[in-house]
């Protein structure tokens, strides 16, 4: 049952990804990319990573499309003769080679959710968090405990990065918008 769903979901994500890469009309790409985001959210949800799925849902459904659209308004959307991008042969070759290299490692991966996965029985990290997260922080969601507690300093850095990136973009845009005249 599960493998049937997995297979179709995989086909869906793959189709949407290829369509996103190949369509020429940028507006169509934005729309199709939203479908890709839906597929990815399902993927994360299916792999029981609800935190990530939730992020994908909140950002993919609400924010990405809108910001991309506004960016498209600022630039131009050329009239197109063809529907699909003509793939670049050399890029395809590189892609194929990379794909083969990465695919060769696939057979060595543990099955999804397998208890033998190295990350799972790593006593120094994963097991430690699982065993001690609640006792240390009294927070039920271990992801939050890790993010805000164990590696809180990292998270602080990330938050500042988001802030700094936001400020930097705002500065650039502000200059463009208000010094145009």
């Amino acid at each position, binding site marked *: 049952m599960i493998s049937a769903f997995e297979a179709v979901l995989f086909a869906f994500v793959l189709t949407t990804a290829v369509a996103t890469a190949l369509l020429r*009309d940028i507006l169509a790409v934005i729309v199709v990319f939203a479908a890709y985001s839906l597929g990815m959210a399902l993927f994360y949800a299916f792999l029981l990573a609800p935190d990530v799925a939730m992020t994908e849902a909140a950002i993919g459904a609400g924010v990405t499309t809108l910001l991309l659209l506004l960016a498209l308004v600022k630039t131009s959307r050329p*009239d*197109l*003769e*063809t*529907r*699909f991008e*003509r793939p670049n042969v050399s890029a395809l070759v590189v892609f194929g080679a990379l794909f083969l290299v990465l695919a060769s490692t696939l057979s060595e991966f543990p099955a999804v959710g397998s208890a033998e996965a190295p990350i799972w029985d790593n006593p120094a990290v994963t097991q430690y968090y699982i065993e001690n997260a609640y006792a240390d922080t009294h927070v039920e969601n271990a992801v939050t405990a890790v993010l805000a507690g164990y590696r809180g300093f990292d998270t602080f850095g990330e938050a500042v990065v988001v802030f700094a990136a936001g400020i930097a973009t705002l500065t650039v845009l502000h200059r463009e918008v208000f010094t145009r005249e």
Partner: protein
Amino acid sequence: MVDVQSVAVIVLVGLGLFFTFVSTAGVLRLPDVYSRAHTASQADTLGAGFTLAAVALALGLETGSYKTVLLLFFIFVTNPTAAHAISRAAEEDGIEPWTTDDDRTDEELYRDSKVETDGGENE
């Protein structure tokens, strides 16, 4: 083994699947964006409605099933709005609805409607 609840759940899921199938067939078969929007609303209403009802029934009386009802409520409020926004934009764009005496093809309808040309499908 198979109790009444399971049967009800399976029937509801089956109905939901059927209407979503009809809707997908409609979106693929129908000639223009307006008619497609009609059957898109089938997936939104009965397809989602029956399936979410099945989920709520399977979950029983707990937080999860209340959330399912909320899901249905939000879908019923937002999706017609989305369909309206789309068809309204189509109308603002000058896409004329297809009628039975209309023998234009899909691509021609599109070409009539808008400045961009989008011809070559022969990639």
